[in-house]
């Protein structure tokens, strides 16, 4: 039989109306390392979920296409099946038992056991553990990686790198593992740790294990993989030997996604000179979106885009300034310093925020639209409030709230039955509009909008973007849009800042060629120097 | 798998048997020991004086003439009884040892005179 380990043919997958994978063909040889790159939402993870037969795939109507593992067709309906078939997966967030030793984790639920008679009555689970045996197994696995981990060490006391290795060791300890998927294994590692990991990966490949290596650090990908596949909009836009391509090529193959129904505007260069907010050395402790050291100036009246790949920290900036996560650094707004870590202050100073976590932070799902819109304004600016007894009793003026709600419903064309309909019952797009409405109701001088189009249908997307655009043009509100959708930002923003590993990698005018942004996204040096164009 | 099922059934059965066994060895019976004249099918057994009765070599009780007492015997099956007839100074003049079975119901009656005079039906369920 051929040396082909994995062959995926004509994989097509669509979640309800929108297609995320279009006829993808992928092959992997034994002992080959395949670098799989692409923007967030390009379809990498969906492809892997299909390979692993994650329930979500089948709950959403399965997929088209065939998967061959060593020649014969397979179709896993649960990850456990995939594991049995010898496919291992290492996620970037660890799935390890914190209080267990490396050994216990490596052989988790595959422990070697000793027989005792109780097994006959109560089943295998009453067999006692054979620690010595477990230990050699673990050590053997660790040896294959040729890294030094104390097998008796508790996970919770390990440095991040060792956790990562333990996890890989667990996958390869399964004697039948032939294919290993590494999803951003180096994301949480330091440079040195990453080096060791890459070495280990190569070694595994040399032992005949096929590896799919997913990463955003293009340098790594180029260094470690034999072949590189780039996904964009669920299609393969580039497939080359690593030796025959370079970062720039990959970058431009990644970016430049097309979005349906986006009103293309004449990108007129607007020039802004009066800064409204300056951010210096901002750090934000937001899980998964850590901001390390951001310096940024926001000019009055502009629309600034903040881009970057997931986990790089772009979302942390807005959340940090709004005081929702522990933050530090120097932020000045309209000349005065803006204290951090207290959500009340920025709101009172006229800074609005539309959270990326719409259902979690953005809305009270079981309250009516009206209250959701009016709430913040009521609490902060005491709008929609009747005062009695000289302001001792602050009575909620439901009539005023209704009135305001009706205005916004018309203004933003929110589809609903009545003002008091529960927000839970609205579609994603309309929920997003409610969030915008609440932000507008504050009528802020500076408005942060995070992921305005995440998870809403195409029509709503352009509508929401138009709202933001109009608000800026008509009220002159300064708006900062944080989004993973580069093209959307390019459509409405004046400037776009790209965040990489918690720092601003660069700021370019929206009109700049997308491949430049691609490079920034990847953390590579841009060819156009910043500064030159930032202030126009 | 099948083997295990058998094992489990076996275990349950074993438990049931054990509990029956426990019941039989643990069950306590209260019997009346009587040292009174006793008439049965015309023949009357007369009291032969105060007696010391010892069951299974542990429960000991003394009965004056014309008196009765209760004793709790544990477990089905054979029980040993030792009767000593006493004189006024309280030392045994006559002593008999026998083994008997309980009816397995509450409140059996054991008649000392009947036993002493060698009748076999000295213990029975009282009507």
């Amino acid at each position, binding site marked *: 039989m051929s040396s082909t380990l994995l062959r995926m043919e004509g994989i097509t997958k669509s979640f309800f109306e929108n297609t995320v994978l279009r006829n993808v063909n992928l092959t992997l040889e034994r002992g080959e390392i395949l670098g799989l790159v692409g923007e967030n939402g390009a379809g990498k993870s969906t492809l892997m979920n299909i390979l692993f037969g994650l329930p979500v795939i089948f709950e959403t109507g399965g997929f088209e296409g065939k998967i061959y593992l060593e020649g014969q067709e397979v179709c896993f309906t649960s990850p456990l099946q995939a594991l049995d078939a010898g496919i291992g997966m290492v996620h970037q967030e660890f799935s390890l038992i914190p209080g267990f030793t490396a050994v216990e984790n490596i052989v988790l639920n595959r422990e070697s056991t000793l027989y005792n008679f109780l097994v006959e009555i109560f089943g295998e689970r009453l067999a006692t553990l054979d620690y010595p045996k477990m230990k050699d197994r673990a050590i053997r696995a660790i040896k294959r990686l040729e890294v030094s981990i104390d097998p008796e060490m508790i996970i919770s006391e390990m440095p991040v790198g060792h956790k990562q290795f333990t996890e890989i060791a667990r996958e390869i300890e399964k004697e039948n593992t032939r294919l290993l998927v590494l999803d951003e294994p180096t994301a949480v590692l330091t440079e040195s740790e990453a080096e060791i990991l890459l070495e280990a990966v190569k070694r595994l490949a040399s032992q005949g294990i096929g590896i799919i290596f997913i990463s955003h650090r293009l340098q790594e990908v180029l260094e470690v993989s034999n072949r590189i596949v780039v996904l964009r909009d669920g299609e393969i836009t580039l497939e080359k030997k690593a030796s025959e391509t370079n970062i720039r090529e990959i970058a431009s193959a990644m970016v430049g996604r097309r979005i349906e129904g986006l009103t293309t505007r004449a990108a007129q260069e607007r020039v802004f000179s009066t800064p409204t907010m300056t951010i210096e050395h901002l750090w934000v402790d937001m899980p998964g979106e850590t901001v390390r050291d951001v310096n940024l100036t926001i000019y009055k009246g502009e629309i600034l885009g903040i881009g970057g790949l997931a986990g790089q920290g772009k979302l942390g900036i807005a959340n940090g300034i*709004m005081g*929702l996560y522990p933050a530090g650094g120097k932020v000045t707004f309209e000349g005065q310093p803006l204290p951090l870590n207290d*959500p*009340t202050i920025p*709101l*009172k100073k006229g800074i609005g*925020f539309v*959270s990326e*976590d719409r259902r*979690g*932070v*953005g*809305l*009270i*799902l*079981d*309250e009516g639209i009206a*209250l959701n819109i009016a*709430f*913040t304004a*009521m*609490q*902060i600016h*005491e709008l929609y*409030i009747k005062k009695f007894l000289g302001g001792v*009793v*602050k*009575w*909620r003026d*439901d009539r005023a709230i209704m009135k305001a709600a009706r205005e916004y419903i018309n203004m933003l064309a929110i589809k609903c039955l009545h003002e008091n309909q529960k927000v839970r019952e609205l579609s994603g797009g309309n929920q997003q509009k409610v969030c915008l409405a609440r932000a507008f109701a504050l009528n802020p001088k500076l408005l942060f909008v995070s992921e305005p189009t995440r998870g809403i249908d195409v029509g709503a997307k352009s509508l929401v973007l138009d709202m933001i655009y109009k608000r800026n043009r008509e009220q002159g509100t300064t708006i900062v849009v944080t989004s993973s959708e580069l093209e959307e930002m390019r459509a409405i923003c004046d400037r776009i800042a790209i965040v990489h590993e918690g720092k601003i990698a660069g700021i370019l005018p929206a009109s700049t060629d997308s491949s430049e942004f691609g490079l920034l996204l990847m953390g590579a040096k841009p060819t156009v120097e910043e500064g030159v164009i930032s202030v126009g | 798998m099948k083997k295990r099922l058998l094992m489990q059934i076996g275990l349950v059965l074993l438990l049931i048997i054990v509990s029956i066994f426990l019941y039989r060895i643990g069950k306590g019976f209260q019997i009346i020991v009587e040292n009174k004249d006793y008439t049965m099918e015309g023949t009357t057994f007369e009291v032969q004086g105060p007696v010391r009765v010892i069951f299974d070599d542990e429960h000991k009780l003394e009965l004056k003439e014309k008196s009765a007492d209760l004793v709790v015997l544990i477990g089905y099956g054979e029980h040993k009884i030792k009767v000593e007839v006493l004189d006024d100074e309280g030392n045994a003049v006559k002593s008999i040892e026998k083994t008997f079975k309980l009816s397995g119901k509450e409140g059996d009656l054991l008649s000392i005179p009947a036993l002493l005079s060698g009748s076999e039906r000295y213990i029975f369920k009282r009507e």
Partner: protein
Amino acid sequence: MDRIKKFIADIGWPRAIIALFLLSLFVLAPFVNVRIDSSISDTLVRFGMNGILVLAMVPMVQSGCGLNFGLPLGIIAGLLGATISLELNALGFLGFFTAIAISIPFAVVFGFGYGQLLNRVKGGEMMIATYVGFSSVAFMCIMWLLLPFRNPTMVWGYAGKGLRTTISVQEYWGGVLNNFLSLRVGEFFFVPTGTILFFALMCLLLWMFFHTKTGSAMSAVGANPEFARAAGIHIDKMRTLSVILSTLLGAIGIIVYEQSFGFIQLYMGPFYMAFPSVAAILLGGASINRASLTHVIIGTFLFQGILTMTPSVINSMLQTDMSEVIRIIVSNGMILYALTRGVRVKSR
């Protein structure tokens, strides 16, 4: 058929069953010659008696602190108020309101501390609340012995110190509310107008509170803490406030209870008092993170209805007193049901 199914699904099976049960009890009553009118008025009396104690659940549930198993804390504040008012020989309405007035500062202080504690144990409120309640009751047992009360109607005759376990308030302010504007039809039917009015007043006040800026902030905290925080609300402040409110209502509630009941029960008396109230509000349709006044009213009525009807009806049917057992099963079953299906309280 489906509509009935849906309807039941909306109000929840146990609620439906218990409502039907209660209904059937009322229907059965005449056949086992239990007077409807007297049972209804009993129900009303108990309704007024317990209403406010149940009301004391609402603020904490609304602010996401879960069911207020710590109610005994509030009750203790009330007891202090009551006993002190007796010590002062305050009579009638004056006495009643003195009791309340005195209990308020206690309630506020207790509530504040209790709130501070609960803010540090977000997620585990209910269990801790229960035990805080228990241990505070036990602690007060010691206090009742030591506190320097002198009023001979309250202290043990022989020792001359240490409060009695039950103290009659009849000649002080017993029944002041019950008899206020009360109307009596025949010898059996009696409506404790005053008590019910007072309960209504409390409901109104709470309703008004939840229509103020602070009130709506509080329910926002319960509905979605993240949202509230993003809207610039100090979650912990709101939670503490809600706990204080609950404790306060608990204090007032027990005083109303006592004026209707006629006695002050000290020592282990308040021990299990939280559970009936919790059960009642859940019975009314509240979940562990959402509760409204309608829930309180319906719940209290259903629950007290069951408590009054089962002894009379069931007993005269079966000639045995199963009411206690039924009470235990119904109330705890109700709480259990809520805990197993209730939405996880979000807290961070």
